[in-house]
């Protein structure tokens, strides 16, 4: 029998990490999961929404700019407004920024290259539904695969993110030098942030591709376990 919570994985034309997320949720977490097609404004009773990586609508105009207007996104916004959990990974992070569900934006990597490799990210806040199963300060090895992952926001927003502990993941290096570990030029070495309500997360690294040691790292799994436990605790 499947465990709760029930997950929904969004699917846009051009999504390409939807199957990875589905696999982790179904086969590793053993939770209920549905694909949610972009054109259908129906979350199928999902408790947790995953906005996966890829190149939604070809990433034309700007990454995530078109996906933001998909019929399913209106429901995702309502879900988040109700306090429901939403996790945007890579292109999902870009979409959530375009939808103004998270502040700031993601622009072209400072070296103009598409970067596909493992990076080190430090868990900056473990007091969230996304990271409770990590210890604060844990350095996770996670893959990135993006051309537009450079996080930017104005100084006021950056200060607000920092002071309210909403920077959830920060790039770092094996010698704990954050600037050295920053692959894409992100301001404040930001790899992932959450919204004010702490129920919407956006991150460029791919935890769903790091849930099995055979794939080089299982450091993404605590994020998914955190979501399960957060939802079960909330449901009691």
């Amino acid at each position: 029998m499947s465990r709760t919570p029930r997950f929904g994985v969004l699917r846009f034309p051009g999504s390409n990490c939807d199957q990875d997320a589905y696999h982790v949720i179904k086969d590793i977490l053993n939770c209920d999961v549905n694909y949610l097609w972009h054109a259908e404004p129906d979350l199928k009773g999902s408790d947790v929404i995953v906005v996966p990586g890829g190149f939604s609508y070809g990433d034309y105009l700007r990454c995530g700019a078109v996906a933001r207007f998909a019929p399913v996104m209106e429901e995702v916004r309502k879900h988040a407004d109700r306090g429901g959990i939403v996790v945007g990974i890579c292109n999902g992070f870009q979409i959530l920024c375009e939808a103004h569900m998270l502040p700031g934006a993601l622009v072209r990597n400072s070296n103009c290259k598409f970067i596909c490799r493992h990076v080190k990210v430090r868990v900056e806040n473990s007091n969230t539904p996304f990271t409770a199963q990590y210890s604060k300060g844990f350095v996770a090895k996670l893959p990135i695969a993006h051309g537009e992952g450079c996080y930017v926001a104005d100084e006021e927003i950056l200060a607000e993110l920092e002071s309210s502990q909403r920077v959830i993941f920060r790039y770092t290096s094996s010698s704990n030098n954050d600037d050295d570990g920053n692959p894409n030029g992100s301001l404040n070495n930001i790899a992932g942030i959450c919204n004010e309500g702490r129920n919407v997360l956006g991150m460029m690294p791919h935890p769903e591709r790091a849930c099995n040691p055979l794939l080089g790292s299982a450091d993404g799994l605590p994020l998914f376990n955190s979501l399960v436990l957060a939802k079960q605790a909330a449901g009691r």
Partner: protein
Amino acid sequence: MQRVKVLVTLKPSLLDAQGKVVQDGLHALGYDNVESVRIGKVVELNLTDGTVNVQEQVREMCQRFLANTVIENYDIEVLN
């Protein structure tokens, strides 16, 4: 038909990584006098005849969709 050209550029406060690469390329070709390069996007719109408040409508399109005002500026040019 009414033609409108929209120019979308990264805000000056942001590093334009593409512009920097092109600047380096121009320097490599010997154009040492190029001090900076910024790269943007041009969106050409053809609107049906009789569209009223063209400027206003296109500004709304820019605000809602054509530009991300967190990172970009836009310029609207009504061509005829």
